[in-house]
């Protein structure tokens, strides 16, 4: 049984906007799943339908086998959701908010108080438990929403951009926390604009664009399909023009920074050898963007993971590759 199973899900809003155009998606039990897409792609609508905040137009969805049309209460009892926007009562304290939320899921008050202490401590909010919530920092508010979503210990946790606006230190500690939750068996669906976050945490991924799933794969398989990566080299001595490296696209960003596009068939040793032969000394090197970001941009721009066009409504890359255009290549 899947944690989430969605078939032919469609949503057309009253103003005629088609937010979802037939989504099919399965998320396995215990998975840490990334649902990515640009703004307006349909991610939040999809989550809204699953959590019953949005009425669907067509299709079916079930959570741990509970169909949301026939067993809505049972389906919702399995889900914990951390929404994109802050949605707790700013005039209540964190302790009250989480205890009440547990009550809405049928957790008795004595148990709820114990859990409130446990989760507020784990999310470093215990010291602020009796403060008015509006006074919490942005990161604290995000953590409070996570604590609230965990109070009924859901089997499926849906996180809609949980680390937006959170500083890097807190973000990384939240990653560790989410990994632990997942390791204990909770299925997690994560949407985020921090692609490094998805790449680091998630085992499987779907990319949604224009209301359709345009890619669905294991994270590792998808990353392996990345055909071209761009590396940035910091040089010891300045260059006036980009060096000509046969077979590579090179771009001189400034006199000490060189970008080189490297395809899967080529290797870095060869580039280093060629640069050394030209007397160019490399001080350091990094990826221009992370690998998932590179694939993501290609997919949402309709070029596929290899740079090929994507068929509308297809979760698979199109069969016919096309040559990528060279942009800004001075060599």
């Amino acid at each position, binding site marked *: 049984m899947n944690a989430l199973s969605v078939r032919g899900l469609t949503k057309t*809003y*009253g103003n005629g906007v088609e937010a979802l155009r037939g989504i099919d998606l399965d998320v396995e039990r215990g998975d840490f799943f990334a649902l990515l897409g640009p703004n307006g792609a349909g991610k939040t609508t999809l989550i*809204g339908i699953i*959590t*019953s*905040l*949005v*009425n669907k137009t067509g299709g079916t969805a079930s959570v741990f086998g509970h169909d949301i049309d026939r067993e*809505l*209460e*049972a389906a*919702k*009892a*399995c*889900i914990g*959701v951390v*929404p994109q*926007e*802050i*949605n*707790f*009562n*700013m*005039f209540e304290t964190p302790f*009250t908010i989480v205890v*009440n*939320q547990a*009550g*809405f*899921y*049928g*957790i*008795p*008050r004595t148990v709820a108080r114990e859990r409130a202490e*446990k*989760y507020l401590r*784990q*999310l*470093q909010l215990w010291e602020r438990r009796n403060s008015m919530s509006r006074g919490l920092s942005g990161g604290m508010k995000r953590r409070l929403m996570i604590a*609230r979503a*965990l109070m*009924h*210990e*859901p*089997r499926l*946790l849906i996180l809609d951009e949980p680390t937006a606006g959170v500083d890097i230190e807190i973000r990384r*500690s*939240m990653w*560790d*926390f989410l990994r*632990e*939750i997942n390791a*204990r*068996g*909770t*299925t997690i669906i994560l949407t985020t604009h921090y692609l490094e976050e998805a790449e680091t945490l998630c085992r499987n991924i779907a990319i949604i664009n224009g209301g359709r799933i345009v890619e669905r794969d294991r994270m590792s398989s998808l990353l392996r399909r990345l055909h071209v990566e761009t590396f940035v080299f910091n040089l010891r001595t300045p260059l006036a023009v980009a060096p000509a490296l046969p077979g590579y696209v090179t771009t001189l960003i400034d006199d000490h920074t060189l970008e080189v596009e490297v395809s899967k068939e080529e290797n870095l040793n060869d580039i280093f050898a060629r640069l050394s032969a030209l007397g160019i000394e490399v001080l350091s090197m990094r990826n221009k963007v992370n690998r998932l970001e590179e694939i993501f941009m290609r997919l949402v721009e309709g070029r596929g993971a290899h740079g090929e066009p994507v068929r509308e409504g297809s979760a698979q890359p199109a069969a016919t590759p096309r040559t990528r255009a060279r942009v800004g290549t001075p060599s």
Partner: protein
Amino acid sequence: MSSVAQPAAVPIRLSVVRWVGFRTIVIREYGRIIRIWGQTIVPSVVTAVLYFAIFGSLIGRRVGSMGGFDYKQYIAPGLIMMSVITNSYGNVVASFFGAKFGKHVEELLVSPLPNWVIVGGYAAGGLVRGLLVGAAVTVVSLVFTHLHVHHLLVVLMALLLTSLTFALAGFLNALFAKNFDQVNWIPAFVLTQLTYFGGVFYSVSLLPPWARSLSYANPILYMVNAFRFGFLGVSDVDVGGAFALMAAAALVLYVLAVGLMNRGTGIRE
């Protein structure tokens, strides 16, 4: 941040979820009423003091008796009922619209609580405030006049049904409201007028026939008179009919509110 969540393994008991959820909504509403007591309890008490001081003590002396009772005694049940009506309505409309506006209504909408429990919880919250304020205004009334209870069950039932009816009406207002103006519109331009013309300060027997006929179309007249009957034993309307009307109104409003919630009116896209 370290260690935690266990996925729920035991099957949920929906009846327990519903009962605990209902209680939680009521406890949360009670907490809100007490937290902002300066806004929820005090204004009605102050208003009641003013009414008793001005209409009861100053003008009432010249009015003499009404329905065979001292004027202050006659208006006391009406003033208590007026505070119950406005507070039951006001509590639900403000709380539920506030939850919509602040988006924390989503806490309930994503939970496994069915809509009939959510509506029931908010209505019970309105009832709690109606009863609290009603009790406070009753205490004020006792300072100014003597109140004899003629029929306790009638008093309690009238209080309960009226409060419930207006709490549910407030819920409907909050469902349809898109901004704060629409929250205030009904209380300011409908409720106040109906209450003042609902026999709080006078007996409809004093009105000319056309005005009396018109008054019988006002549901608040039945509520105030049923309540007054419980205290004084006099009424301008048939008390049995008044209870039937109140029960029917509460039921219709409840069914309507749950139906609209199920459709997603005002809460879902």
